């Protein structure tokens, strides 16, 4: 449980940090994802020290995977929270990834894409709710007029 929590926090931070470097610091998607992951991976490769070997092995993997989410363009998502949520979903998929696809290059990218696409649907569903809220307001107005 302790390890899972740490991995979830890492992916939450990684996705948002990459998006920040990508969009605010204008470093472009590839550089922001690759350099951040390189720093984290090198650190855990050489200076993991007394850290739990499970964490030392998985934190770089989760970090690079979640950083793919941060490569998204601001045209599609602009909310940091949504990107963070996508990071959490990514981590949950990563923890359950099928043993069948173990060792396949690009599996991290696919998980990242799935979690990002899932999160992208939230504004679409949200928009519909706004519309129905509008309908309710309209009905109320009509209802009041009828009462009078």
């Amino acid at each position, binding site marked *: 449980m302790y390890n899972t929590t740490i991995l979830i926090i890492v992916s939450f931070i990684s996705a948002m940090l990459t998006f920040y470097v990508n969009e605010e610091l204008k470093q472009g998607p590839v550089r922001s994802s690759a350099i951040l*992951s390189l720093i984290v991976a090198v650190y855990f490769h050489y200076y993991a020290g007394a850290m739990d070997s499970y964490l030392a092995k998985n934190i770089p993997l989760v970090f690079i995977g979640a950083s793919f989410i941060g490569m998204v363009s601001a045209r599609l998502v602009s909310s940091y929270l949504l990107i963070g949520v996508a990071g959490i979903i990514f981590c949950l998929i990563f923890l359950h990834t099928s043993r069948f696809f173990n060792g396949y290059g690009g599996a991290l990218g696919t998980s990242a894409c799935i979690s990002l696409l899932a999160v992208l649907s*939230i504004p679409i569903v949200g928009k519909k709710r706004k519309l129905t809220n509008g309908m309710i307001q309209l009905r109320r107005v009509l209802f009041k007029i009828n009462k009078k």
Partner: protein
Amino acid sequence: MEKRHDRNSTIRKFFIVFLLIIQVVFLFAIFRENLQSWWTIASMFILCILILVTYLKGQLHHEDHEYEHILVVLWIPIGAVASFYLNHFLHFGPVISAAAVGSTASFIPGFNKRSHYLKQLPAAIYCGAFIGMSSTGVAPGISFVLTASFFTAILLILSKNLFAGVGGKLGTMAFAGVVITSFVYFLISSYV
């Protein structure tokens, strides 16, 4: 003109459905291994529905269809082999190899800032680097990596304006390339 438009729209639909299938297969594999946990099954269903909503209603693609230039995708095998070499011959591990190749690639546009061609290279090389992250159990040698790069290159050529700016697109292409190649290898080994 009309004919070309029809062909483009067929390719678009084919590609979008293909990517959806790859992702659903990926989720289905998780689903199959966790049949005992209701929590996982429910979340897989919710994820599938959410993805479907985005596929149907999201503004993911540019209107006009374009093809990626072949000179751009030629860099995929270079990225793949470089990353594979760092990963398995120098034993740096998958993350450092892919990230190092990607970091180096991201500085290529700096050589000539006015060149449109150089600006497109980092994405192609980074896409190749994901193929090189495969373990030796999946990718036994350079020939596998080159074949996977070939399939990934075809997918990247077809999908220039599709899923534009979606994070994870490059990874999904690389994954699709690796899956197709291992399927082809599996077929060859079972029938030859």
